[in-house]
């Protein structure tokens, strides 16, 4: 399982030769450093910790800074773990760049979706709302009935209602890599990815590829 950290930059489009349009998201991916290696014996699971985006030393806390400095690594804003099967193939301080991905490969992209605040049911769950005419008032974005009467005498659990929306971890699976530029550390994937511009994203090799699914059948 290979992966890299990056920053969402924005979207654009690419035309294929036959005129088809491919929507793409541009990501500044890496360069990342391997900052720690977690092994079965020591930590109970196998993973590598990746660090991304150099910052000024004063933006980190003392423990964060020393964790990096003891391995002669620069101060890094983000540290994230990625589970791997072969932690022994990595070494602390190793640089990981976008060149681990090839054009045409499938990846999963994880990010933190934009926060929508306290959102109503129309936005949050796609309800249709109520009628706008025929003598209605205050019903346009209303949720409608939330249950029966005295029997059962309560609202069933899990009913979709208004509430906090967004600002949660979201993964989009099986996005095609359209472009890789190791010089400029750029990566473009087909389609949209979660989060605002400049927000952190984790790009990993796709877990559920077409080939894997076939093997199960």
């Amino acid at each position, binding site marked *: 399982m290979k992966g890299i950290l990056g920053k969402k*930059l924005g979207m654009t489009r690419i*035309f294929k*030769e036959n*005129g088809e349009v491919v929507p793409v998201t541009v990501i500044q991916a890496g360069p990342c450093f391997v900052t720690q290696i977690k092994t079965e014996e020591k930590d109970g699971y196998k993973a590598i910790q990746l660090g991304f985006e150099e910052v000024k030393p004063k933006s980190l806390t003392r423990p964060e800074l020393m964790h990096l400095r003891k391995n002669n690594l620069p101060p890094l804003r983000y540290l994230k773990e990625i589970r791997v099967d072969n932690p022994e193939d990595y070494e602390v301080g190793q640089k990981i760049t976008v060149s681990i991905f090839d054009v045409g490969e499938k990846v999963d992209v994880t990010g933190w979706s934009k926060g929508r605040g306290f959102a109503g049911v129309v936005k949050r769950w796609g309800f249709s709302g109520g009628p706008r005419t025929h003598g209605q008032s205050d019903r346009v974005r209303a949720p409608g009935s939330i249950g029966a009467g005295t029997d059962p005498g309560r609202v069933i659990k899990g009913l979709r209602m208004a509430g906090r929306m967004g600002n949660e971890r979201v993964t989009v699976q099986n996005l095609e890599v*359209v*472009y890789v530029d190791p010089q*400029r550390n*750029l990566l473009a994937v087909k389609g949209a990815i979660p989060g605002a*511009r400049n927000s952190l994203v984790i790009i990993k090799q796709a877990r559920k590829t077409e080939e894997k699914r076939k093997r199960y059948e």
Partner: protein
Amino acid sequence: MNVQEAIKAVEQLNPQPSVPELRPGDTVRVHYKFTEGDKERVQVFEGVVIRLRGTGAGATFTVRRIASHGIGVERIFPIHSPNIQKVEIVRRAKVRRAKLYYLRNLYGKAARLKEKRE
């Protein structure tokens, strides 16, 4: 590296557009390639450019022409589309606005545009 440069770098993947520098008011002939099943053919759409929109890979232009029975037809072309084979500028007109939507309400003699003197 800033965001604009990064996005431009990716847009470099697009082929160079075969569209010359257009202005609103230009009368153009757009040679547009179609694929019907496995056959390809080129259709020519002639009309007035009434709008240029957007920047980068998403930029488009709108061409308006009066088809048979005086029905106005507008087509929107993406500037970077590889299906545009060629755009010929037939004539350029002097216009005083960027979007010529007012032409939609005019027909016949009133919808003429004054030619630009170079």
